[in-house]
């Protein structure tokens, strides 16, 4: 798809991700054994033939920049287009820190102006899903819409998680007639996926107008205010989609990846999901290993028992250790006889011999990076 470019918004931090995002942008949160959340939107864009992608980043972006590098893993190390990373900057006509999503894009208007594609797909960076944007662009053109917003029936989410999304209402023709950002009492279950398609020229105009009026947020100050004056349509998405925007959602999403149907939807059908390569050797199981219903990444050494869990690359589970319903990130070590239940361990955590950590089924216990328990 040569006529569309991508903008990925990864700026905001999110207190609801607790320790997991205190050291990284939510888009850089590790998911599913070897991925980071942003791998999904990036791969979706690349699989849809989009080769000019800008990533706007602000909060703790070092881990994100480290992950993305030159974009090699996504085939985005290009002479024309490719991957652009935009952290905030200071200059005569720039304000430094991004004050909101619209402000972030406005600060990089030059990039938008210099790009040649007719359409731009603006997306958040922390959703776990597989989607082909070619169909959505066709739909956008077909509807003769000014802006098209992807939405999905979110009745499979917890009720309180709905309040973290934008809730939309559509008419029979799928035109969006109401949009409430993070409502306290959601009126329906149709949630915005945070993906918007419009013509590049229109986006530039909208941003200039928004900033000129002293506003900064793309959803509140542009989309919602223009609901009546612009033709804003909804594009209904029906497959698996999760946003890692709270600990509960994050935990649940990882556990759902243990379902082979979800796994197939994400990783097998319709294109690959690319991630940074680590060159780890195959995972090694020793005599005492008892692993069931779990995802195990390369570079793991397993001698203990693992059930309903996700082990990231290079995790070591020693003899007699028992892990249930847990997510163990890269490089963590679980020593002999330790026991974990409903736990999320960030990178390089050490659980020493015989220690016992148990979280709640819905509220896992979180252990911060490099912690020694």
């Amino acid at each position: 798809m040569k006529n569309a470019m991508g903008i990925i918004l990864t700026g905001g931090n999110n207190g609801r991700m607790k320790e997991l995002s205190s050291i990284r942008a939510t888009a850089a949160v590790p998911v599913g054994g070897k991925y980071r959340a942003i791998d999904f939107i990036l791969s979706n864009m690349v699989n849809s033939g989009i080769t000019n992608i800008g990533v706007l980043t602000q909060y703790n972006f070092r881990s994100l920049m480290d992950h993305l590098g030159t974009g090699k893993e996504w085939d985005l190390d290009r002479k024309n287009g490719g991957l652009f990373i935009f952290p905030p900057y200071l200059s005569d006509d720039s304000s430094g820190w991004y004050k909101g999503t619209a402000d972030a894009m406005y600060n990089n208007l030059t990039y938008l102006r210099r790009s040649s594609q007719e359409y731009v797909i603006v997306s958040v960076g922390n959703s776990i899903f597989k989607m082909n944007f070619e169909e959505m662009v066709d739909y956008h053109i077909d509807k003769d819409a000014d802006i098209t917003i992807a939405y999905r029936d979110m009745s499979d989410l917890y009720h309180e998680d709905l309040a973290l999304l934008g809730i939309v209402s559509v008419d029979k023709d799928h035109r969006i007639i109401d949009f409430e950002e993070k409502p306290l009492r959601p009126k329906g279950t149709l949630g915005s996926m945070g993906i918007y398609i419009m013509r590049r020229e229109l986006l530039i105009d909208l941003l200039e107008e928004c900033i000129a009026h002293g506003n900064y947020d793309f959803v509140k100050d542009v989309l919602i205010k223009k609901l009546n004056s612009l033709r804003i349509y909804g594009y209904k998405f029906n497959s698996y989609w999760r946003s890692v925007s709270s600990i509960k959602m994050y935990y649940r999403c990882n556990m759902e990846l243990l379902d082979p149907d979800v796994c197939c939807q994400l990783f097998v059908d319709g294109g690959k999901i690319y991630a940074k390569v680590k060159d780890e050797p195959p995972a090694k199981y020793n005599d005492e290993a008892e692993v069931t219903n779990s995802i195990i990444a390369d570079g793991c050494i397993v001698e203990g028992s693992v059930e309903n869990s996700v082990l990231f690359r290079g995790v070591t589970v020693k003899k007699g250790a028992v892990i249930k319903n847990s997510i163990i990130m890269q490089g963590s070590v679980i020593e002999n006889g330790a026991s974990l239940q409903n736990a999320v361990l960030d990178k390089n955590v050490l659980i020493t011999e015989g220690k016992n950590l148990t979280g709640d089924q819905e509220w896992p216990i979180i252990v911060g990076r490099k912690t020694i328990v």
Partner: protein
Amino acid sequence: MSKTEMIALLLAGGQGSRLGVLTKNVAKPAVSYGGKYRIIDFSLSNCINSGIQTVGVLTQYQPLELNAHIGIGKPWDLDRMNGGVTILSPYLKEEVGEWYKGTANAVYQNIHFVDKISPEYVVILSGDHIYKMDYSIMLEEHKKNNADATISVIDVPVDEASRYGIMNTDQKGRIIEFEEKPKNPKSTLASMGIYIFTWEVLREYLLKDNEDTQSENDFGKNIIPSMLKDGKNLWAYQFSGYWRDVGTIQAFWESNMDLIQRVPIFNLFDPTWRIFTPNPIKPAHYIGPNGNVKTSIVTEGCMIYGVVRNSVIFPGVFIDENTVVEDSIVMTNSKIGANSYIHKSILSENVIVGNDVKIGVGESVPNDIKPSIYYCGITVIGESSYVPDEAQLGKNVVIDRFVTTDDYCSLHVPSGKSVFKGGVCD
């Protein structure tokens, strides 16, 4: 370092015919090994880990897979502006085209490649071996000894010494005699087929060797002996670590099995000496609710619902419920149905095994067509072949590449028998 001090020439043209159906369509260096690698990855990774950034790979036999695997050398960081990896295949000269006649001839035909870079030293490697070695330390020795050639050697058991090229050295390690497969070996230092030459000297001997119509144009048989005869300064460099020539089905299987030991004698987990390979773009592997894996290595993209014991499982392998895989090697993207039992077998890439199948059962009878290749009880299934539902395959059975269910004369293939593509039934 403005000038390239040493380059590597990797001889990857051999078929490795004793690997049977595994090398029917690919050169031996391209054979899959160790859960995600190919044999050549070890030499290539050794190069980059030793700081060698210019590598010529000399190919001849079935180079397609090898070329695709190496590409522009990206996985090994060998995609360079200066140097990097270059595939050197036989080519047409002004009047005649010529295959590589021997290892030395292969290098002779690429003298212009080396001259263009004009390094001080070249290291000649074969892409056939599994080992980790720092060639820069060997080069230090070479320079310290002011040697014309340094040959890497390994101590082998006395009773096996007659299978190798044996170096007899003085006390300091200078080579005084070289014997190819001697009946009564005087030492146990076997050549590993790794040579560092001072390029100027090697160049001269390559030209001389090419003039000699009697020569077999081989490093071991011709170049080294004639250097010794001329009193050149040749040294042995003793290597002590894991080194295997996985040239037979048995050796290949054993070396793979070395990786699944609790503390493997060959460690792939060393972060300071990683082995690089093109990574499969697949999710982390999944073990199902009734799955069970012990004493095995498993790679990305696998779905394991059955039982796996003492095995090496490559990317994208699917093993269904109630199936047991033991003492086996299952290569990329192979699928094994339910209620099956697979014992001591090698399944190549993209093999499809049906339900209720038994493989590798019964008494061990050497293969009746190729007893010298398939005799050690291991059944081998060639790439993209089918094993139909309810089939029973004995030991030392060979299934050719691309065999379909129609090619089976009977669902019962006794030990030592073979099934060929389009085969005729008795």
